[in-house]
């Protein structure tokens, strides 16, 4: 155990050392994002706080709105921003500033109204004007409270800034979410530890400023804006893009041999690339923020946003056939389970899956409805038996297709067996899903052969390469190895192949006459 830990620490250190350039750049971006948005939040929040301290009637409304904005889930807020501001720095900064606003407005307000009214009266009686009272009396006296607000906002921002990587704004989130997708603990920690340290250090520094007496505070306050500006400056707004086309790849795709690395080595593709979350990538491509994205071949948004898959003419993307993977223990406990899950085997082709995904993603039908309609149309649906013979726990990853599959399995189990079902859907990424399975939190979830091979097993690159282009070989390999290593069984494939794919807007693909990845490479080389 001890040795294992030592090894672990060493490798984390090695990873950080190897990736030190990236780590440094991400940290600077992170700090920059935090402080640029903080600067804007202060520029907006401070005057608003002063305003509502003067016109108390407005305070309820303003604080109410800021409070509501604060409760919008961060990823949703980022999503709202894309149609308005696109992707990259702008929406990230706006989203962060919205989160930072409430503590700053609220503390400015409470700081000012908390000042001894006799001090204000004395200031007025001595003939100070409104602005003199504000600058010489109210703001200095409210400053410790205002600083506490800024401190809270800073710490919030450091946290939320990790999500900026979802919309291609960079920051330490790139490592964190890349690591979660790639089942790479070192990568997660390389992002998470600096982010946590950053929060702790900034909090401590600001608490020092907050505790200063008035004289020192005066000096510190002269320096503070300069410091904030400088730190904000780390995040130079991305200027004009280098190449004519811009690609948006997920953090996972960026780190994979069968992703960006393969595109570079096998195709020699050179394209300006930004890292972005799967959740907003398709929309960004549709709204012409991005030209090339790394999607999934059965994704419903392919249809919804009128995108075209570029043919992988040098086949670097291995097959990703979906099949349920089940703990051997669970198969023993629920003898009917394997047979029931296999009812779906071979039933869903690529185009069927794309269509099912389209129904949920674009037509906004519930996964439950889509699953039920499909099962009814294929004659697999049976009314639930309401059995009490144990509970099967189904897991799923956090994207549409997995929700639909989980619903289908749930209905099949309820209709064909005496088992009860509980679902744990929306587990954020391969690592989380697989860990849940290994730790007996769930009994099975739908996994993809390619993921099993390259992410979970991570065999020698030679073996992987040899295997990667043959769907049967891949299946056989993961089947045997999972049994041996994890006591987990791969059931029969469902039928569709949800592999990685590069895609473009239909129209652009036609205009540029780019149909394959090689076409894309040639186009980029020429332009």
């Amino acid at each position: 155990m001890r040795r294992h830990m030592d090894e672990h620490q060493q490798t984390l250190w090695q990873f950080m050392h190897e990736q030190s350039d990236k780590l440094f750049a991400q940290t600077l971006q992170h700090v920059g994002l935090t402080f640029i948005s903080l600067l804007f939040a202060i520029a907006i929040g401070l005057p608003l706080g002063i305003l509502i301290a003067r016109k108390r009637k407005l305070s309820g409304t303003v604080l109410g709105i800021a409070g509501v904005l604060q409760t919008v889930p961060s990823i949703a807020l980022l999503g709202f921003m894309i149609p308005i501001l696109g992707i990259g720095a702008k929406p990230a900064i706006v989203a962060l500033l919205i989160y930072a606003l409430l503590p700053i407005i609220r503390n400015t307000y409470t700081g000012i109204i908390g000042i001894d009214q006799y001090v204000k009266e004395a200031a007025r009686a001595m003939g100070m004007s409104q602005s003199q009272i504000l600058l010489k009396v109210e703001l200095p006296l409210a400053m410790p409270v205002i600083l506490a607000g800024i401190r809270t906002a800073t710490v919030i921002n450091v946290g939320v800034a990790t999500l900026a990587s979802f919309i291609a704004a960079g920051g330490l989130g790139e490592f964190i979410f890349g690591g979660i997708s790639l089942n790479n603990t070192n990568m997660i920690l390389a992002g998470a530890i600096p982010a946590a340290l950053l929060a702790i250090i900034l909090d401590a520094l600001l608490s020092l400023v907050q505790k200063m007496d008035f004289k020192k505070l005066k000096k510190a306050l002269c320096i503070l804006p300069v410091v904030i500006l400088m730190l904000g400056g780390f995040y130079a707004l991305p200027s004009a893009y280098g190449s004519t086309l811009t690609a948006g790849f997920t953090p996972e795709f960026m780190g994979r041999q069968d992703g960006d690395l393969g595109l570079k080595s096998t195709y020699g593709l050179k394209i300006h690339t930004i890292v972005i979350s799967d959740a907003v990538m398709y929309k960004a491509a549709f709204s012409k923020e991005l030209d090339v994205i790394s999607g999934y071949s059965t994704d419903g948004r392919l249809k919804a946003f009128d995108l075209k898959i570029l043919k992988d003419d040098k086949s670097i993307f291995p097959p990703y056939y979906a099949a349920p993977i089940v703990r051997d223990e669970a198969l023993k406990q629920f003898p009917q389970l394997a047979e029931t899950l296999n009812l779906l085997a071979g039933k869903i082709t690529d185009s069927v899956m794309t269509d099912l995904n389209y129904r949920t993603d674009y037509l906004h039908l519930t996964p439950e409805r889509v699953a039920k309609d499909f099962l009814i149309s294929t004659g697999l649906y049976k009314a639930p038996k309401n059995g009490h013979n144990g509970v099967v726990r189904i897991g799923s990853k956090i994207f549409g297709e997995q929700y639909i599959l989980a619903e289908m399995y749930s209905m099949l189990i309820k209709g064909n067996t005496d088992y009860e079902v509980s679902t744990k859907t929306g587990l954020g990424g391969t690592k989380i899903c697989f860990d849940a399975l290994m730790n007996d939190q769930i009994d099975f979830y739908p996994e993809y052969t390619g993921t099993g091979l390259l992410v979970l097993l991570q065999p020698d690159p030679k073996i992987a390469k040899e295997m990667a282009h043959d769907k049967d070989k891949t299946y056989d390999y993961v089947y045997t190895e999972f049994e041996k290593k994890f006591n987990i069984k791969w059931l029969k494939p469902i039928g569709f192949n949800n592999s990685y794919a590069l895609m473009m807007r239909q129209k652009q693909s036609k205009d540029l006459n780019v149909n394959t990845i090689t076409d894309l490479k040639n186009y980029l080389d020429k332009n």
Partner: protein
Amino acid sequence: MIQLKEISKKFGDTLAVNKASFKVEEKETLVLLGTSGCGKTTTLKMINRLIEPDAGQVFINGENITNQDPDVLRTGIGYVMQNIGLFPHYTVAENIAVVPKLLKWDKEKIKVRTQELIKKLHLPENSLAMFPHELSGGQQQRVGLARALVTDPSVLLMDEPFGALDNVTRTSIQKEFKGLEELKRKTIVMVTHDVQEAFELADRICLMDKGKIIQIGTPKELLYQPVNDFARKFLAGQRLALEFKVVKIQDIWPYLPKRALQDGKSLSADLNVWDAMELLRSSDRSELLVSGANKDSKTVNFEQLTKGFNQFQNAQAHG
């Protein structure tokens, strides 16, 4: 000179001040006296426009103050308040320098004037670099006074200036206050609910009730010629002490025995009976030599003083 002409102020439905008019002469101290809620503080605050009157006019040195910029008006009027209202983030020196800085005095002038004031007000030299919370209540009020006096304004407004102090400190500061040369040059309007304080410090007292002025007059007039029952009852509780303070030895001169035993330093007959009694009590002297208005002198002891005072009282009552 300050003049109020029928000023009124309403807060909601309550008439806080109802057609108040008075005149304060140059270098006079007028005390606004009354219970809380009688409108005295509102009246005071309308003089420097901390509160704007609904009706009526205020003139300072003949000028209608509504025609002046309120901030400029206020820099020219000293203001002392019960809660002192020192800036907690300023040192004592900075607190005193607030108005001079608004008036753009040069640093040297501010420094000289500040030094002068802290000497006059008996503040320790090292207090200049301290923050208000490091001072005692009495010291804070002295700083408050210094702040109001620093530019030597001709008009001084004081809102219960000694209200926040304990009894001992209050009495000693009142005494000092009375003796301050700086203050003798000023036209002062002061608010208090403390009858003793009013009698101690006022040239004239303006007694108020429910927003209306009941009576304006010297302490003596209030005591001996109250205009109505309210005025009489207001002073009833402390009448004897007040009378001792109001009646001067000169007033009871005819009732004192004609003898002058002592030679040497004599006291003025302007001394009030209260102070004379205190002198006899606290010192080891059993007699005081007093010189009257006609340069004749008399020697009195405690007994003769009380007897003379009683005879004067009887004469007042029957006259």
